[in-house]
């Protein structure tokens, strides 16, 4: 059996999951610097706590949950740095990608998070319900509302142009 040192184990997790944590943090905080701080905090907690994971999925769910918690704590505290418009800082390869990404960011935080977990991370409704501890029906109805709002943002945006 391969003997993995603690540091090797942590390094592997960071390399594998830093992007995932960063992407979700960015969706929630809309701020690059804050999201980078959250990446550090999430893995710092992991290192301190060294939780026992039952499986890869368990590990992933743990990291997502802690990312959500950390970004909440961040948003609630004065750690939060002044909000800069992300549009100037992130460029996408195609206008379609840019349009949809920034449209999602215009949604309320709870909607953005659900859209991210559902469409990007590919979680099912019952899984989101467990990770976030909210009722399945709430997830469903919020997703519907999120999609509707998203639609109106995208359509409204095009009229402006």
């Amino acid at each position, binding site marked *: 059996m391969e003997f993995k040192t603690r540091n090797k184990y942590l390094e592997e997790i960071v390399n594998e999951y830093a992007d995932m944590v960063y992407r979700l943090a960015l969706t929630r905080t809309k701020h690059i610097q804050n999201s980078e701080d959250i990446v550090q905090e999430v893995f710092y907690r992991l*290192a301190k706590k060294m939780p*026992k994971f039952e499986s890869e999925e368990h590990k992933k769910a743990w990291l997502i949950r802690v990312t959500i918690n950390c970004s*909440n704590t961040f948003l609630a*505290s004065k750690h939060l740095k002044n909000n800069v418009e992300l549009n100037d800082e992130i460029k996408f390869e195609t206008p379609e990608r840019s349009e*949809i990404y920034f449209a999602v960011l215009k949604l309320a935080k709870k909607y953005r998070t659900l859209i991210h977990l559902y469409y990007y991370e590919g979680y099912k409704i019952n899984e989101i319900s467990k990770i976030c*501890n909210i009722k399945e029906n709430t997830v469903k*109805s919020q997703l519907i509302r999120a999609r509707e709002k998203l639609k109106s943002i995208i359509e409204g945006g095009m009229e402006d142009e």
Partner: protein
Amino acid sequence: MNKDNYKEAINEIKASSKVKNETINRITTVKRKTRQKLVYTLSTVMIAAVIIISIAIPLKYRNTTEENQPTKIVADKGGLPRVENFENLCNILETKDTGYNYGKISEDLEDSVSIQESSKSSDTIEINTTSSDFSKTNVQVEGVDEADIVKTDGEYIYYVSEDKIVIVNAKDVSNLKIESELNYEDFNVYELYLDNNKLIVIGTRYDDTDYYYNNFTVAKQYNIQDKTNPILEREIEIKGYYNSSRMINGNVYLISNQYIDFFFDDEDINEDDVKPKYKDTIISEEQKCLGFDEIYYIPDSEERMYLNIASFDINNKEDANIQSFLGGGEEIYCSENNLYIANAKYEYKDYRIFGYYNNYDVNTYIYKFKLDGTNVEYVAIGNVPGYVINQFAMDENDGYFRIATTDYNGNKTDNNLYVLDENMNIVGKIENLAKDERIYSVRFMQNRAYMVTFVETDPLFVIDLTDPTNPIVLGELKIPGFSTYLHPYDDTHIIGFGEETTTNKYGRVTTNGIKMAMFDVTDPSNPKEMFKTTIGTAGTYSELLNNHKALLFSKEKNLMAFPITISEDASNYKYNLRFQGAMIYNIDLVNGFILKGMISHKETEEGYMDYDYSKNVERIIYIGNNAFTLSKGLIKVTDIETMDTIGSLEIETPEYTNRLKLVEVME
């Protein structure tokens, strides 16, 4: 909206390698905090004691021995220490090494035949003992009520439809009418209790616009003397998400889990943010905090979570009793006298090796509380190997607590049953039952336990518990399929609900429709399957598979009913829906299961149907000889004898309800 563009956009976003490297550098140098000063002040005698303890305690605790113990332990009269202050809270939490518990998430994803989607709200069961002629919620323990989405008093029906409650006058079935509705904003209704003229509505309230962080478990008590005008009498809330509740003789016990979330490094933390919060409108309209000196902690069981318990008497105006314990709770079992809260923890066998999934032990910690009116008093903590599947894996009889668990051992599983005494010490056990299988359902009936484990066939074990110190396996029956819920028919017969299974040509076990079976355990050494019925093929689903409250059963009325969606000829991962509604059976020991009728809230269609969320029957109840089927958008009355539809009532549902199916099929 194009989902692919969204995914591609996010894929372009990456954490910079600078951030990754900084993170790695930071965390690989993290030493779990030790407060050196404290260690130095320990006397030599104390150091000797620490060494002895570190040898005597199991290996799994060794990795914490370097860390400081909580600075101050103040024993309560019951022997339970309190947190006392914020610094102490930090100390306790930093020595903890269990994370949030996500065990169930992975279980669902991994297991292709899994039907265990135990939801937080699905909690208990019981046998109907109807004195009057109407049905009650199917609960685990007689006399201990469990909340559900529908309740009736034989004249009115109280039903949760989306985020509102309808009070329906059911006296004249040909003229059902809504007497009143309770509508809410920013409040998610979960379930109800009904007791004479009191209606207790349980749900969750979200603070701010974000529900991950600030959620509160709420009980709203209404006086419903006048059905057209329910009056809100009292509101009680505790911070945290809703775990479960029970009601015994008008005393409600409300249980929540509250995450404790703050940065350890944060210098300017507001201590109130990490305290348990509560509100009781009898005391004040203001939200209050419990002080750290009022929070108990149970050594060995702390987690980054509070278990909050509110208890109150619906028939008087005494202050609610609010208590908080550092530590999480998952499954709840409640007898008339004691409340047991079980929490599974995953602990490394060898703390030097990380990242191996088989390098941990699963242990379930059970806190026992004595119930005396609204007084909830901690008694003891017990600890058994393995995890429990649901509340039915626990039971109390004659002062003994019994619990059935599945334990991991390397990559293998085995199954155990333990008997614990009043002080939660193990006095009897059977271990290593059904190796490589896991428990799918358990039912305790007085001095016997019935346990179903599963890999390819469904062994039903009959276990004798007459001598608590010496449980004995009396008999075993192996049949295809598995049961996820066992319901007593009488003292010597049990009904099992579950799924039928077949082994395909590749040797994989696949599910193949819903299975019901009647087991005869008159001769416990030779259990028999008397009758068996299967419904539909793969994809057929009933809420009863993971929520006992979905069952309507009355032996006296020779009646059994449950909600169902039937699929047929499933192929290419598409389930062809044949029927959506409820099935009504007659059941007896001579003829077995006789299908009495099927009730749907949808128009009959040729061929396959579309799933309709607002017309999905959730519960079946009866009043007299009438069966009421309830879906979000409709209540329908059927004569149980003739199966004729004799009444119906539409319930207005929000527009999005009808479109929920769109989300589910959006790929």
